[in-house]
């Protein structure tokens, strides 16, 4: 009996061993036939450094090259300068600070999960891309390093977005791109309709009604984008949703400035003067292609791709970028998205990481190619594709202006993504008429206080 049991175990082990060796043999051979197909030069050397770096980050002898891992989720798409190529330039010039850039293939939220796990496993990359709204959350969870001192050295290179990487007085990284809200519109259609680019709430409503009478919409109320689209407009109108007083969070998402935003959209929705397509649904793009949607308030980074569907149609080259209309008489705009590069907890060489961070995020032309609106103040040249789609307009210059107009008083709270969920639900109701736009901001107020209390943070009772 016992003997048989050994035999069984032996048989199973033999099977396993067979399998494993078969595998091992395969792996050794797999990469080689593939290598010649790799015509882009960059990925191969990058890959070779990864395993070595990951297994021995700690026992890197001093004086030798410092290894920095950088996890990003930039598109690296068609016609863009790949991140690995930009990084290679740095590596060539800085033999002492070798950077390995790795692209994360997934949604922002999934990358947060991975970073959290990585930090807990003591395995995190030194640098990682974080959305501005995620920064407070990551900070409260203790997943990022305090690099205030290092960051201050580079402050002069960056615009208003510099503050987005700070939580209170603590700075955790440098900004990469920013998403000021701007107004995109089809100039030719506007001319045909005899309307001007709206500059304030009143002219926006008037233009919308004129266009709607002709079956055209100069904007779409986008419930699925409500979180940052509406909070950004509120910021543009001069609102500050979250502030700290006496070490307590003060939540005010229903103030007078925000109400001005609610009033604007409520009137437009009541008059059926705007479309209500979800931003990331097919209907939005289809409405642009069939020419019924001829404008919208959009984040600056949308200029990188929003018009792709119009290539080859009669509307190609007719669109332009303008500044967001002044809501509540405020000449500002607000942030919709954008992200920075933070130094993650456990980074062994924060100073060197920040040195690269500052260099990378001032490579504005390359970043513009990636479809970003760089947060650095150096002017970026408008990529060729963008110039063609916007009829030769210097889009980047217009976006830099928008960056300069961006409200600097608008930050987020830990748990803001959850607030966004509530806002989107309420926005969907407002879009189909079963709710009011003002409800969205009421929902944000309640959800914000709940999020802060859930995180165990003190909230000022007002």
């Amino acid at each position: 009996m016992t003997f048989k049991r050994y035999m069984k175990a032996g048989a199973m082990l033999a099977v396993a061993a067979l399998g494993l060796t078969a595998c091992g043999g395969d792996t050794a051979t797999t990469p080689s036939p593939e290598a010649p197909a790799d015509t882009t030069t960059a990925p191969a050397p990058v890959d070779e450094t990864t395993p070595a770096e990951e297994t021995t980050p700690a026992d890197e002898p001093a004086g030798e090259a410092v290894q920095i891992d950088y996890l990003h989720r930039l598109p690296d798409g068609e016609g863009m300068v790949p991140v690995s190529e930009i990084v290679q330039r740095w590596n060539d010039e800085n033999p002492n600070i070798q950077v390995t850039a790795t692209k994360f293939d997934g949604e922002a939220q999934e990358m947060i999960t991975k970073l959290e796990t990585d930090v807990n496993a003591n395995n995190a990359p030194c640098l990682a891309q974080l959305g501005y709204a995620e920064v407070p959350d990551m900070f409260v969870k203790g997943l990022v390093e305090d690099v205030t001192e290092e960051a201050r050295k580079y402050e002069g290179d960056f615009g208003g977005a510099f503050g987005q990487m700070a939580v209170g007085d603590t700075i955790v990284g440098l900004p990469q791109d920013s998403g000021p809200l701007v107004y995109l519109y089809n100039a030719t259609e506007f001319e045909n309709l005899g309307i001007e680019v709206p500059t304030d709430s009143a002219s926006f409503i008037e233009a919308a009604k004129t266009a709607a009478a002709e079956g055209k919409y100069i904007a779409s109320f986008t419930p699925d984008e409500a979180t940052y689209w509406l909070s950004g407009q509120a910021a543009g109108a001069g609102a500050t949703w979250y502030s700290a007083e006496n070490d307590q969070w003060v939540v005010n998402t229903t103030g007078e400035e925000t109400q001005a935003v609610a009033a604007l959209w409520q009137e437009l929705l009541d008059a059926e003067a705007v479309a209500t397509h979800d931003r990331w649904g097919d209907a939005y793009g289809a409405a642009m292609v069939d020419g019924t949607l001829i404008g919208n308030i959009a984040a600056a980074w949308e200029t990188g791709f929003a018009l792709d569907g119009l290539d080859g149609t009669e509307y190609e080259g007719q669109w332009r970028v303008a500044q967001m209309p002044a809501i509540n008489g405020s000449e500002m705009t607000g942030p919709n998205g954008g992200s920075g590069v933070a130094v993650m907890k456990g980074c062994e060489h924060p100073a060197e990481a920040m040195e690269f961070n500052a260099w990378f995020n001032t490579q504005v032309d390359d970043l513009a190619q990636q479809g970003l609106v760089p947060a650095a103040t150096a002017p970026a040249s408008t990529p060729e594709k963008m110039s063609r789609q916007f009829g030769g307009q210097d889009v980047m210059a217009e976006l830099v202006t928008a960056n300069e107009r961006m409200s600097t008083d608008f930050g987020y709270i830990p748990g803001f993504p959850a607030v966004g969920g509530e806002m989107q639900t309420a926005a969907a109701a407002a879009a189909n008429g079963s709710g009011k736009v003002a409800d969205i901001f009421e929902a944000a107020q309640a959800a914000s206080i709940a999020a802060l209390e859930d995180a165990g943070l003190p909230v000022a009772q007002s």
Partner: protein
Amino acid sequence: MATKTAHGKLATTPDGLRYRPSHEGLPPRSIAPSKLARTLTLVLLAFIALYFLLPIVWVVFASSKTKGDLLSSFGFWFGNDIAWGANWDSLMAWTQNLFPRWVLNSIFYSTVAATVGTLLSVAAGYAMAKFQFPGRNAMLGIVMTGLLMPVALLTVPMYLLFSQLGITNTIWAILIPCIVSPFGVFLGNVYAASSVPTELLEAARIDGAGEARIFFTMVLRLLAPAMVTIFLFIFVATWNNFLLPLMMISSAELKPVTLGLYGMMSYFDPNRGAVMLGALLGVLPLIALFLFLQRFWQAGLAAGSVKG
């Protein structure tokens, strides 16, 4: 009686008896399904076939379209331009020319995981079905518990474990979890219990065959249909595996095709035509495999159904 021959003519046997012959290709009239039942079945099956085929047809057409055409043209026909070439170029550019490699990676992961996993599963299942040893039922119970565990729940702990072993971002991080299949062990156990006669094993032992020889020369053959089922099951599970590589793999060279395509989709407004082309090319190996192995699979699913 003879006047009501709507469905068939009367015939005469050589010795003069008149009878109503059954329809060609059908069972005898007494048990043949009625025309209504047959029509209904056909309609239902046609619907099911459409239900499963239409998405694939849609992907074929979608992969040929430009961004504008995808939004404005009818889904089940070509758009204004046939942009397969442009979409292929775009797919290759977006994936830094790694797309074919990702498909090969997927084939590699799936084949290795399915092959090793199948052997492990039937070996374990057979051992638990045909040998008496202490803790057998407990083992079976633990395997069944594993069956109920959602993979998503296990991925993060597994990541921490693998990270301590230093094998994250290697092929082992994908292969090892995929090779272990509680469902495969369970199936192997059920099949071995029902289609490996204990008498046969005893006869082999009397004839002097060792356990290893019995397993490899006899049992594996008896379990062949089950192995095809388990093989396909693990193969598909590994191919569709997404969360695990998302957490474990960061090198572009090691990514399976699911993860790579998702990387293209996770940006605002991706070039969908190119992603659709990638999805189509990524699913072709699976379709080929199923067409090739489906008759074995049918046999596998039915095995043991009579003996119970």
